[in-house]
């Protein structure tokens, strides 16, 4: 693989606080692409994957510096350049997806992060958390200064949790099953339907309501496509 050519070390990546074994660059990029697709197609903001982001950025830095050492005009250089650009695109797109959802659902995202349990995984990276808080403060300050404080006394606040819509968890998503699942309960959509149970075979693809499979997306049992 091209990346192993470009990397001058043994091509492996260490993850500081990971319980997994050392990942190869290919595995890291595959993880990035999975996170990217899941985030792109999920209606709600998914768990933060800071480790993946940091490792990919380190990877890109390695690749860039190795590229400097390649002789100019060497045909390999343009292929490596393309590889770097592609990875950077996926990473940027992933982070943009997240930022868009953070902005769109900002009061809910902050509420969820503030009220999560100690051991629960983070919804937001520290940088995203700071950004979300700033976005909230910026918007609230603006609305107050321009309109709310000029309104009658009993109308000077707006509950942003009520005013800003929540993500629609009932939107439909396409997915591919990575790990076989049994007895998934599918809730009825209308009053004349009944709930039913479905098995998800490995490798099969489905169009299903996000709400039904949300825990499977975070566990990695299914991949949104």
């Amino acid at each position: 693989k091209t990346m192993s050519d470009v990397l001058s070390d043994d091509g492996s990546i260490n993850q500081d606080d990971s319980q997994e074994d050392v990942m190869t660059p290919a595995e890291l990029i595959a993880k990035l692409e999975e996170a990217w697709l899941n985030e792109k197609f999920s209606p709600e903001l998914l768990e933060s994957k800071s480790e993946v982001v940091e490792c990919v950025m380190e990877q890109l830095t390695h690749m860039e510096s190795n590229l400097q050492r390649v002789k100019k005009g060497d045909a390999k250089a343009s292929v490596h350049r393309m590889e770097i650009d592609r990875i950077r695109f996926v990473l940027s797109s992933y982070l943009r997806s997240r930022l868009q959802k953070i902005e769109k659902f900002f009061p809910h995202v902050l509420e969820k992060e503030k009220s999560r349990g100690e051991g629960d995984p983070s919804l937001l990276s520290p940088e995203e958390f700071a950004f979300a808080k700033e976005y909230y403060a910026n918007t609230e300050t603006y609305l107050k200064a321009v309109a709310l404080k000029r309104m009658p006394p009993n109308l000077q606040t707006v509950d942003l949790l009520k005013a800003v819509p929540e993500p629609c968890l009932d939107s439909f998503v396409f997915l591919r099953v990575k790990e076989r699942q049994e007895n998934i309960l599918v809730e009825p959509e209308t009053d004349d339907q009944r709930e039913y149970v479905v098995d998800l075979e490995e490798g099969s693809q489905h169009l299903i309501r996000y709400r039904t499979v949300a825990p499977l997306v975070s566990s990695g049992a299914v991949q949104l496509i």
Partner: protein
Amino acid sequence: MNVNKVNGFTFQSDANKNVFTAFCCYKPPFEASGAAARFHWFVLGGLPPSDVTEPRDQTRIFAANVSSSSDIFSPRNKKFNFAGLCLVSPGFTGMFCEKAVELIRELHRMSDGQLPAFNEDGLRQVLQEMEALYEQNQSDVNEAKTDGRSDLIPSIKLRHCCLLRNQRCITAYLYDRLLRIRALRWEYGSVLPANVRFQLSAEELQWFGRYKKSLSCFMRSLGGAEAGGEGLDITQDMKPPKSLYIQVRCLEDHGELEIDDGTVILLKKNSQHFLPRWKCEQLIRQGVLEHVVS
């Protein structure tokens, strides 16, 4: 069954004139003769009046509950029971919340995300209406308490509904504009073209400035503080890379551009260059360069 036609409204009352059924929806029906007043038909639930005859005789609100504005808009032929009408104030020339809805419509008309100029006047008018409604309510509430005038309660509730609606419309107007302004950062970069800046109010420009700062702080921090790097500019790489280099034509003089390998290109109007794609993206979006597809 009495049937009366008033300004396109058909309403019926039963033999006791207790329940009125109206066909049609929300609009000011008519002007009472002899008084510069308009009667507003609202959908009201609750107690029917016992002495409603000709609408123009009525000057007080009778119904007990005011339903939400969503009940007011009805498809044709859907009937609503209402128990009366109210004279809100003499000389009142329009519906409540009209100006607020106009603000919303102004934005709704530009559905492609364009930003019209900030409607300072419109905002001020809605806030003035809110102040007037509130003051009327304050005095009615006092009267209701001291003189036991419980018949004022429906109009108090009505004005409160209008106040909430105005608040909601104003916040929706302001917030939707912020969303459009946010999109400008992603479209044009941190420097807005003059003709776009012109459409923003001073406070909106402040919001934009804080948003920009917050975003660039975020981007710089990507990859972890320990990495000591410059982060990642995620406003670049908006499209998947298809080719490394692209042919561009310069649309205006833009001075010098340094590429990664140190070469300096002079961007003179109408000159054409074969440049790395990632260097050109933002300049293309800003209109400085044009991608030449041969």
